């Protein structure tokens, strides 16, 4: 009898394989889209195959989210320590600003400095995804009961030991939830990268908007939505495997 966890990973694996098979099958897409939009002359975006577009999209999201996580979590930890507590308001303000600032505007401002393509897109996605990660890290650490920290320090743990043995394990669930939200937001937002030539699933959508071709838009939007669902499940599974739960095991 496989455990609930193994079963979840198995289902995700099957869904992933199904997804790859689906996007690799250009013929199927063409037939389907032609059936839906008989009036269009072309229904498949000619720039690159769907497989390539999805791969580009994943790269955009992986790099930007990677940077977000690598910088965001330590940033959240730092402003929760006594040494960084003075910077807490500033950091929350800046990350909030990063999310209220439209990514398109970031692109417009970044292009003169970073040029076209990947770099400005990653910068925009990084800024946009930082808030949920930093916020949740701060909230997760803040929610650790002070009695537990009292016990930890009282037993002789150093600050670093208490952080890694008590605080992070207890807040892992909240932090990972922030990561998940950030990644999902980025999968949607990464579409705009196509505007400045970063590729990804935004390419057919932008082309479809320009040429008023609904088939192109579907070709970009549908895989992106599926990708978001898969990423959500993947990260939920990681949360469930790594994080401590209150439920008895």
């Amino acid at each position, binding site marked *: 009898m496989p455990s609930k966890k193994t079963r979840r990973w198995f289902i995700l694996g099957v869904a992933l394989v199904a997804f790859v098979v689906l996007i690799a099958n250009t013929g199927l897409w063409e037939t389907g889209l032609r059936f839906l939009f008989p009036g269009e002359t072309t229904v498949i975006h000619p720039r690159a195959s769907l497989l390539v577009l999805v791969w580009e999209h994943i790269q955009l999201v992986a790099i930007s989210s990677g940077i977000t996580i690598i910088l965001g979590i330590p940033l959240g930890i730092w402003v929760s320590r006594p040494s960084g507590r003075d910077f807490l308001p500033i950091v929350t303000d800046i990350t909030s600003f990063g999310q209220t600032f439209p990514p398109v505007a970031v692109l417009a401002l970044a292009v003169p400095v970073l040029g076209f393509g990947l770099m400005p897109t990653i910068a925009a996605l990084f800024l946009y995804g930082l808030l949920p990660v930093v916020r949740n890290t701060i909230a997760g650490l803040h929610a650790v009961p002070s009695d537990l920290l009292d016990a930890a320090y*009282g037993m002789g743990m150093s600050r670093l030991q208490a952080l890694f043995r008590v605080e992070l394990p207890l807040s892992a669930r909240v932090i990972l939830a922030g990561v998940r939200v950030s990644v999902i937001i980025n999968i949607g937002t990464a579409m705009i990268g196509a505007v400045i030539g970063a590729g990804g699933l935004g390419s057919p959508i932008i082309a479809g908007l320009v040429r008023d071709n609904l088939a192109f838009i579907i070709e970009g939007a549908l895989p992106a939505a599926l990708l978001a669902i898969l990423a959500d499940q993947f990260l939920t599974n990681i949360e469930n495997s790594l994080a401590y739960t209150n439920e008895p095991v």
Partner: protein
Amino acid sequence: MIRLEQVTKRYGETTAVNQLSLEIGKGEVCVLIGPSGCGKTTTLRMINRLIEPTAGRIFIDGRDTATVDAEKLRLSIGYAIQSVGLFPHMTVFNNIAVVPQLLLWENNRIVRRVGELLELVGLEPADYIRKYPSQLSGGEAQRIGVARALAADPPILLMDEPFGAVDPLTRERLQAQFIHIQKEVNKTIVLVTHDLDEAIRLADRIAIMESGRLVQYDSPEIILSRPGSKFVRDFVGADRALKRLSRISVKDFIKPAAAVNVNQPKKEALASAAGHRWLWVVDDDEQLIGWVDTKTLMQSVSTKEAMDEGDAVKISILESATLREALSRMLELGFKHIPVVDDSQRLIGEVALGDIEAATAEGKG
């Protein structure tokens, strides 16, 4: 062992602890008690430097704690707080193993030690090591907390309301176990509580505090019989004579009891009464099973027929009980004498109400 010299802690304008001096001997249980806000917890937390004193010095074994690395100091002092202090993401094993792991013990040694400690606190190791704190009852969690504090065998134990978060019945059982464990491990213990009965029961010496000052530091007997000030007298309450009884063991007041075997013939039984109106009845294993009125016995055929059956647990007390429990049980039952039994309910003797009255009168002053 532990010596506080003129220790003061100020928070801005308020003084939490004011020039407190206290000496706690090796193997002693010192209970800090007082109304809330009197500085007892602050005092406790200054001993392991979770709080740094504003002024004054604290010595452990003659060494000024301010000169020792705070984390090293804490690793050598057991620390137990209310059950919430268990780490919910760790199993019982890992909770107890925290300090040994910080001290980099070998794994085999940790496994052995955790087993020993669980047995010491009366929990079956195999049943508990894999459990999580959320699967424990309040009493079990409390005991794990004590086991965890004892993990690296520290000579000193600091306990902040260790029996605070459990129901009264469990608390009493934990206190009895605490006394038993302390006899075995003989630690120097500083315990904070707001429960006077707990202090009287557990302490070798009680330190009563009032707004940051130590007002009296004496054995429970002296605190109860000779309170040094009006504050202490009010604090220990009007029933201090009664409270004193809970420091006195039944053991020293046991007298031989008149008893008959349930199968003894009526005549023999009446002969052994020797002037007693009531006789305790025991079975062949010397276990208490009831009592008999000699007047009824004279008119009956046998001891068995005349006797009033009674559950030994309800009509007797254990030899390990205190006079207070004995008195309470007597008032409840309306007895002037109460039988004393051992752990297997064998009759050892009895305690008389008159002797308890005498014991109460003795300490007056």
